[in-house]
């Protein structure tokens, strides 16, 4: 690991155009990476980690300029190489894989054709040879039935398979350096585990240097040899994975690590015996497309789900995307009409209610949504958003607005911010407004659909803490939907694991997470990246 570094950045600075939130994306960044090593760059959104990757590939957008510093690769400075030479480096010398597998491949061309393109540009192999190389690459990344995969179009593959194809494409010409920009963030935790293992194997076999960019410390613990922590375009700490994770020196690193929720659950809280919400045999099937019912594609989103929520408790529903957890949540709130089953809230069956009745009764059960930028109407002021619910239910506008101001304080926002528009708030603040809106109607039950998944880990920690306080103060019973087992472990009292529309296991969090019965739950828990670190680490700041 000690010979000549493959790539070394010396004092790299990148200036942002006028009007951006800060002057420089990168400010005097120096780091080096040797062959056969995985260097993890970790930091929150806006820390400049992706910009660094693009700078190395010289793929920065028009108005962003590399201002100073050198990027030594293969003995030459990438900052000053002419575009033609740079094109030779891209793909052959340095390869790159991206975060969104869904959109990273051209939908109109087959996967095999796009991989073959790498060979067509950089080599003059014959068509037949290229065909073979493509198939062997696909076998390397362990894609099921490489022949059909090569002829398939991107939309015909799953997210995981597409990311494997991207890796095959990147490693086609055995590049010296592979840059992976958050390759597993958009994947399910089980798929993520397989991809991380694949990258590890390929890296060791081909001795390539890998620059792995992520915001998830679990992934860092799982895969990194060395770690670089970045904040606002500067490197705050560098070192081996073990040193940085267990003996962080810089306060920002400590704070980041502490914010990552560990997998082992805190001691269980006493639960009341009286159930405020009971769901029995709820099912929902979707029929899409088809003409006069022939050839329609039927997908059973939720199959016979039964759950109970004790008053004041928090019931977690975990599962991968497509498991039906969101559909179940929307059935409870009657945004979606379940096909059958009963939903009893304080004794009243919500499935039987007609539209008009639901509009009156909806006060008792409110919902918080996932995407902070999409869940607030951009055209309305913040205070108005929070006051909307009570106004619809007849509270005079003036009192509703003053109540809204109080709620702002409750959720930790400055009351005077009421007359600002949603786009003037940060992601975390917007989730707090969403929370205030839900609480304005003083609901008995709160449905939280992945409320913190879109937030940075430090902001995530603060919102979860707020949720905990509100639960105590207002005696809220919460149904908490998430795909992140670590979050579920910290927040929920009870947890139910869903797979393909069915509840495979449910019970107290401590029991389910320490002694999982169902094989799927066991696989889920095993896939949480970071091994020991994930279970136990320094959480006190």
């Amino acid at each position: 690991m000690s010979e000549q570094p493959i790539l070394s950045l010396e004092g790299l600075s990148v200036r942002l155009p006028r009007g951006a939130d800060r002057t420089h994306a990168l400010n005097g960044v120096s780091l080096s990476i040797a062959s056969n090593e995985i260097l993890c760059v970790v930091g929150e959104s806006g820390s400049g980690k992706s910009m660094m990757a693009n700078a190395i590939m010289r793929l920065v957008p028009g108005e962003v300029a590399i201002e100073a510093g050198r990027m030594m690769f293969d003995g030459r400075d990438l900052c000053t190489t002419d575009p033609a030479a740079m094109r030779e480096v891209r793909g052959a010398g340095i390869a790159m894989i991206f975060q969104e597998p869904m959109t990273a491949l051209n939908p109109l061309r087959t996967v095999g054709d796009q991989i073959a393109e790498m060979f067509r540009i950089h080599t003059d192999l014959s068509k037949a040879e290229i065909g073979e190389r493509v198939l062997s690459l696909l076998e390397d990344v362990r894609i099921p039935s490489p022949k059909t995969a090569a002829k398939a179009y991107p939309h015909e593959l799953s997210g995981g398979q597409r990311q494997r194809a991207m890796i095959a494409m990147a490693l086609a010409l055995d590049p010296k350096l592979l840059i992976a920009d958050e390759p597993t963030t958009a994947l399910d935790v089980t798929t993520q585990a397989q991809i991380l293992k694949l990258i590890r194997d390929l890296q060791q076999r081909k001795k390539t240097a890998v620059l792995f960019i992520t915001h998830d410390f679990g992934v860092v613990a799982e895969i990194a040899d060395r770690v670089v922590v970045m904040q606002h375009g500067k490197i705050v700490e560098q070192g081996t994975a073990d040193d940085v994770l267990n003996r962080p020196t810089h306060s920002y690193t400590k704070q980041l690590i502490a914010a990552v929720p560990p997998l082992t659950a805190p001691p269980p809280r006493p639960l009341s015996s009286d159930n405020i919400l009971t769901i029995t045999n709820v099912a929902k099937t979707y029929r899409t497309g088809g003409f006069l019912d022939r050839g329609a594609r039927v997908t059973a989103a939720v199959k016979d789900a039964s759950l109970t929520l004790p008053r004041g408790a928090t019931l977690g529903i975990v599962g991968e995307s497509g498991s039906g957890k969101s559909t179940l949540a929307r059935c409870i709130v009657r945004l979606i009409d379940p096909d059958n089953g009963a939903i009893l809230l304080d004794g009243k069956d919500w499935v039987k209610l007609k539209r008009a009745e639901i509009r009156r009764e909806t006060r008792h059960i409110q919902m918080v949504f996932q995407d902070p930028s999409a869940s607030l109407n951009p055209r309305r002021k913040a205070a108005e958003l929070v006051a909307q619910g009570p106004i619809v239910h007849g509270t005079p506008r003036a009192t509703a607005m003053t109540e809204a101001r109080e709620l702002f304080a409750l959720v930790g926002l400055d009351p005077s911010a009421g007359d600002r528009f949603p786009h003037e708030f940060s992601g975390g603040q917007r989730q707090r407004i969403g929370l205030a809106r839900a609480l304005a109607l003083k609901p008995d039950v709160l449905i939280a659909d992945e409320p913190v998944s879109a937030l940075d880990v430090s902001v995530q920690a603060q919102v979860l803490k707020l949720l905990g306080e509100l639960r105590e103060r207002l005696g809220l019973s919460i149904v908490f939907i998430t795909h992140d087992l670590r979050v579920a472990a910290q927040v929920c009292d009870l947890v139910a694991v869903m797979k393909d529309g069915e509840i495979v296991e449910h019970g107290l969090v401590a029991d389910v997470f320490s002694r999982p019965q169902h094989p799927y739950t066991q696989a889920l828990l095993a896939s949480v990246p970071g091994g020991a670190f994930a279970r136990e680490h320094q959480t006190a700041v």
Partner: protein
Amino acid sequence: MRIIGLAGRRLAASIPTLFLILIGVFLLLQLAPGDTVDALMAQMGGGDAATARELRKFYGLDLSIPAQLANYLWHLVRLDLGFSSIYGKPVATVIMERLPPTILLMTASLSFAFFFGLVFGVIASRAVNKWPDTLISTLGLVFYATPSFWFGLMAIVVFSIYLQWLPAGGFEDIGEVRTGIFRVIDIARHLILPTLTLGLIFLAIYLRIMRASMLEVLNLDYVRTARAKGLDETRVVMGHVLRNALLPMVTLIGLQAGTMLGGSVVVESVFSLPGLGRLAYESVIQRDLNTLLGIVFVSALLVVVVNFVVDLLYARLDPRISAEG
């Protein structure tokens, strides 16, 4: 062949639309003052009440409106478009005579507009905000803003009178009878100016759509992947961007077919082309309901056929479509 199924469904869905239009236009034209007999007498320059009454009976205008409508639809179902009072011939033959010039004019203008719209759109998007982009965009707007008949008349003054390069009007030269390739050349020469006039506005529209669509696609992730693979800008555009940018252009053709026939009314009257556009104008003036409904029926069919072809083209271009079916 799933695409045929998809297109078949579109065809079936357009049948109610077709009947909706025909009945709508039929009832609408009943409200117009005067009927085809008045128009005939206006043209004949005379005629007394007796002949008028007899003519009305002859054209079946003395029946009640619902009876006339039922009569018309009953014939239509058997694909008999009825009798044209202007031309004294079955409507179908009249339209068949006038169809070739309109089809030729429309295909020529559509392909002219699509091709140059595409080329200029790509050039403009490659040099966004630089002088070629502003020049092309402004030229596009100027073409869009020019009234087509005004451009046509000025073109005649310049190209056929002043420069004597092109014939001033008509579909083909009637003096000597030409055959084979000579006739084709002759018709082509006659169609240059009309195609330019009708095509100009659509060129402007395609140009703007192509530029916006190119800019949109250039921002997408897989273009960034292509660049990361070491492709140079031209290969990126040719290999990846162009095909995706074409999708909105292709759907636009389907939408434009209808408006194009509308545009040809004016162009055909300026260049005295014997097409469906002018026939439509004459049949409205002459209150020849059968011919007008016949034209509406044929143009609706034309639009459905064009949309069918567009669907096929789209399915060819975008594999996602044929998969979902």
